[in-house]
């Protein structure tokens, strides 16, 4: 169990998000833009679909020999003078990293964006241990100052206006009157954080890939903070889920060709940084120590689990951008570290099926996510599997299970089905006005509060058939 289970009902969180006018507009603009950029990138990339299939195959093939690839990765990193640690739980990962920080007398750590470190709630643990974590990705820096969590996998502060950011900077950085100008805000962040990069004892990053054949850890970034965090401080710690290992550099080229295109529509992100252990003896710069923390935290159990396919995920965020639900409610309403379609699957992976009792239904199963995914993950299929688990393990509320089983009984019997139609016709009588049903009691009110319903026909099609077949 990685994260505390949210107790506020999803419906409440979602409705609250829907009421946030600015969030709504920000989400609309941002997701629409991302969708357009991704479409344009793939329209100009005829081999895109073929590469996506290849990328998916590489991910599946890697899982089929995961142990070998990980062994090779570890051996190579150690050969290069790096250290590899094995964390089964989030707690263990935190302890490993705190130990490294303590041993090095670190008092400040600069962090390059890493959802894996969000997942294990690392920042709180660092603070508690007297190590100040400084987020350096601009979006992460903003939400860190605001004491919030990311609301999108690749654009963490997508829910904030420039006005809100300016106000935040003015307040937290004690520099009153900062204008709501992204250029100015970026410049301020650059200045504030440049100092931190140069002073930090420790750089903590995630990793997009790790190449087993060569012991190379790969970071994909746009701002330059990934390069800073892996070259300036004396110690570099990379935290990475075990599923991110890939066999070779040839495989890496395939993934690089589709990753940025899927995430932001760029052909490549600005920086792709290949880290091969600590600084070599002949190098002027670079960390003296390199550590890779390999993270399980629920992933290993899915190798043979229903969520195996979600281990292919590249964390590009494309599924969030196209999801009709995410586009309406944003990331925070999901309640856990990872939002959006893949986020529901990852939440189940990290916290068990109980955590997605409601979230597994935060989807109309439209399939836009699967369409957008660069490794063709069939997210809807797994959402249905999670719903099935929730039902079969008795996690779903019992009235719901009773209703569905009764419904199934009716569908198995044409006589009960016909009876159902007759009952419906009778029961609806008080509610039909001008050929429409405008309000219904109980549970059915969920529909009629905002939408009309057609009445059950006076004669169903099957009842009319005799007239039609003559």
């Amino acid at each position, binding site marked *: 169990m990685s994260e505390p289970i949210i107790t506020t009902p999803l419906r409440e969180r979602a409705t609250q998000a829907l009421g946030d006018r600015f969030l709504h507009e920000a989400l609309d603009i941002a997701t629409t833009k991302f969708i357009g950029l991704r479409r344009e990138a793939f329209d100009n990339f005829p081999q895109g679909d073929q590469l996506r299939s290849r990328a998916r195959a590489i991910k599946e093939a890697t899982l089929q020999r995961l142990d070998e690839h990980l062994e090779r990765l570890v051996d190579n990193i150690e050969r290069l003078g790096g250290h590899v640690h094995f964390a089964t739980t989030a707690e263990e990962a935190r302890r490993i990293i705190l130990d490294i920080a303590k041993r090095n007398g670190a008092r400040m750590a600069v962090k390059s964006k890493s959802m894996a470190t969000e997942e294990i709630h690392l920042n709180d643990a660092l603070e508690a241990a007297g190590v100040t974590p400084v987020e350096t990705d601009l979006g992460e820096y903003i939400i860190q100052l605001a004491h919030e969590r990311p609301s999108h996998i690749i654009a963490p502060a997508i829910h904030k206006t420039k006005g809100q950011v300016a106000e935040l900077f003015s307040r937290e950085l004690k520099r009153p009157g900062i204008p709501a100008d992204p250029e100015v805000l970026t410049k301020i962040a650059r200045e504030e954080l440049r100092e931190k990069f140069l002073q930090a004892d420790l750089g903590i990053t995630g990793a997009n890939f790790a190449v087993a054949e060569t012991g190379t850890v790969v970071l994909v970034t746009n701002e330059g903070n990934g*390069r800073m965090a892996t070259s300036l401080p004396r110690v570099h710690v990379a935290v990475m889920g075990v599923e991110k290992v890939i066999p070779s550099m040839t495989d890496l080229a395939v993934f690089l060709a589709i990753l940025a295109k899927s995430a932001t529509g760029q052909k490549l992100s600005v920086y792709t940084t290949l880290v091969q252990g600590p600084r070599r003896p002949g190098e002027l710069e670079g960390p003296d120590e390199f550590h890779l923390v390999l993270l399980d935290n629920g992933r290993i159990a899915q190798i043979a689990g229903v969520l195996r396919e979600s281990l292919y995920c590249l964390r590009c965020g494309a599924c969030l951008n196209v999801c009709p639900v995410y586009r309406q409610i944003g990331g925070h309403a999901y309640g856990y570290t990872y939002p959006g379609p893949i986020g529901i699957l990852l939440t189940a992976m990290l916290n068990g099926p109980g955590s997605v009792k409601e979230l597994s239904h935060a989807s109309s199963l439209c399939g836009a996510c699967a369409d957008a995914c660069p490794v063709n993950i069939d997210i809807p299929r797994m959402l249905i599997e999670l719903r099935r688990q929730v039902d079969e393990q008795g996690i779903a509320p019992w009235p719901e299970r009773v209703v569905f089983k009764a419904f199934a009984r009716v569908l198995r019997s044409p006589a009960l089905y016909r009876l159902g139609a007759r009952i419906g016709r009778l029961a609806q009588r008080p509610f039909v006005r001008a050929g429409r049903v405008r309000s219904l009691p109980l549970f059915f009110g969920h529909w009629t509060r905002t939408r009309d319903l057609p009445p059950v026909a006076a004669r169903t099609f099957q009842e009319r058939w005799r007239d039609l077949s003559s």
Partner: protein
Amino acid sequence: MTSRADFLGRIRTEMAKTRGLFAASPAERPVNPRARLDLLRRELSERWPQTLERFRAEFERVAGVFHRVTTAAEVPATLERICRERAARRLVAWPAEDLGVAIAPGLGAAGITVESMPRAVPAESERGRLRALIAESDLGVTGADLAVAETGTLVLVSAAGRPRSTSLLPPCHVAVFDRTVLVETLEQLGLALEAWHDGPAPPERGAMINFITGPSRTADIELTLTRGVHGPKEIHAIFVDGGLHG
């Protein structure tokens, strides 16, 4: 703490429960990458003008500034112009042998200081001084190990005399290169990476490789694009027709 054996043991246990979702293979790797890369270079040398044109288009598309000179002797003058346009007075640079051209004399005459990065690693205190100096510099001059036309990307391998921050800390980065580093596609980049890792690494090679595609950028605030977040705000390429390294 979980040991390596326990961790991998658990993975093996889970793997044994399933054959996976479908038959799949990783990408096919080149059999003799170094020979393949040499062959590729020879093929590319026949069509380098087209490759260069593609590189220029993509480099400019990601807001790189492209310059082209006929001989290496013209490089200092181009650099001087770039410096003057930005009121840049202090440069850091790869050593002349690594750049393939000497730039210090020409720029010195124009009152622009060039600090060449040392090849040998100096004492800790000198490293600190250099770090501060690089951070204060206006412009960093490097070569490039590869230039990828498909994406307008420069590939820089860190090494003795080629520290990582030369192309990272100053607000302007200039890369000087010639036709010998041009490749067409990401796939060919993959081949180069295979070749570079085939066999032991040369002792002067560093522990980092960076692919650089345009200046540092973010769109984290209202999806408005801004440049020069942490890395350079500008990136320039100076292509030397006649070649570098004599």
